[in-house]
């Protein structure tokens, strides 16, 4: 009898994002413990995608933390799409937690515009303490770019991302670092360091095709899993982020 052919490879435990199209592209979800960069210019859906990742985790009884750096969480909650699957009780039960980074800075006495290496350590320890104390399984920092502005040098940014990634991974926490770039940027992060260190990169963009502006998503890199590298068009709806493959028939430059 011919031997059975087994095409499956050993699979790392997945953190299912709950975004069906993305989980399909990632062969089941983000490998648990990965720290990934969700990057793109403004209006491409980075925050919405990240929030949905947390909401699905919270619905699955995982503790999820959103660290807001650029805007207050109150303002953020007012502006999010009212998901059909969102439950207010997730916040009341402490499954979905929002923390404003300026409050963390204040508590830590980090009031300088530029952080030194020791202060980077203080910040990483503070975030790790919150994650440990609350047994956080999913974390979003929106945005890492704003934190990096205070680090200034590539050395400190590398140090921060390496340490935060290693710490969160050791705690079994799957993390999304939101990265902002300008629309014409030809790299995936503003400082060029974040993209090299992260375990994964999900690139979100705007594609103009014959006068139509399409929101797109592409998984550029993801350690620990096979993944699609095709470009998808996405829609932000009350049923969550929906994805379909970008049609290539009328191929255009950059498409």
């Amino acid at each position, binding site marked *: 009898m011919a031997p059975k052919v087994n095409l499956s490879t050993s699979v790392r435990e997945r953190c299912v994002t709950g975004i069906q199209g993305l989980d399909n592209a990632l062969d089941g979800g983000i490998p648990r413990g990965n720290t990934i960069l969700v990057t793109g210019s403004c209006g491409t859906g980075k925050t919405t995608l990240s929030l949905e990742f947390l909401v699905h985790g919270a619905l699955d009884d995982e503790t999820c933390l959103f660290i807001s750096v650029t805007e207050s969480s109150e303002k953020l909650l007012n502006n999010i799409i009212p998901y*059909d699957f969102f439950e207010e009780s997730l916040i009341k039960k402490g499954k979905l937690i929002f923390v404003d980074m300026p409050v963390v800075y204040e508590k830590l006495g980090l009031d300088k515009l530029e952080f030194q290496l020791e202060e980077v350590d203080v910040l990483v320890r503070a975030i790790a303490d919150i994650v440990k104390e609350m047994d956080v399984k999913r974390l979003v920092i929106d945005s890492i770019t704003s934190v990096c502005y205070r680090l200034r040098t590539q050395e400190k940014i590398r140090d921060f991302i390496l340490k935060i990634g290693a710490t969160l991974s050791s705690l079994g926490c799957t993390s999304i670092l939101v990265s902002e770039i300008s629309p014409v940027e030809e790299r995936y992060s503003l400082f060029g360091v974040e993209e090299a260190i992260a375990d994964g990169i999900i690139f979100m963009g705007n594609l103009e*095709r*014959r*006068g*139509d502006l*399409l929101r797109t998503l592409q998984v550029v890199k993801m350690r620990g899993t096979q993944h699609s590298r095709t470009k998808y*068009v*996405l*829609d932000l*709806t009350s*049923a969550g982020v*929906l994805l*379909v*493959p*970008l*049609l*290539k*028939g*009328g191929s255009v430059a950059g498409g």
Partner: protein
Amino acid sequence: MSVTTNVADKLMTLPESSAVALQIRAEHYFDAIRGILDNFAIKKELDSIYITSTIPSQSIINALQVLEVDMSNIFFVDCISQIMMSTSSKHEHTIYVESPTMLENLMLKVEYLTKRTQGRNDIVILDSINSLAIHNNTKILSEFLHLLVNNLRAKKAYTVIFSMEEYRSEDISNMLNIVVDETIIAAGE
């Protein structure tokens, strides 16, 4: 037998997941729509998702209201009203796509509606391949049809693609032949 009954009867013989091209003449347009939505979909307890790129959804809704068709399970994806800068009021069962060239967005809106109507099977009506062909080239339109129909088959939904007889072309026939199981000619007897 009327066009309405004829179309509905032919659809009744098809298994779920079927994709059909419905070849119609302009004079039978509303009779065919009524046959699908009123006589077929309602009897089969299907949710109807109607993609219109030919005339604004409001015109179809007005006609269905005159015909006293129950609208509670009929939803529209309208990709023509906005490009026409139509100022008519927006119907609660209609989702608008900015342009018939945004084919991915048509798929996304269909996906959204199928998610919203979970629990019941769907019929998706594409009205029409000819009007989409005005705005899109053959390659991208073929790719769109292929993805849309196969996605709907996987969801066990029926797909009906309108093909207007007056605007038939070899390209359109070839495109349809690749994706549909059958062509129904809407005619009375």
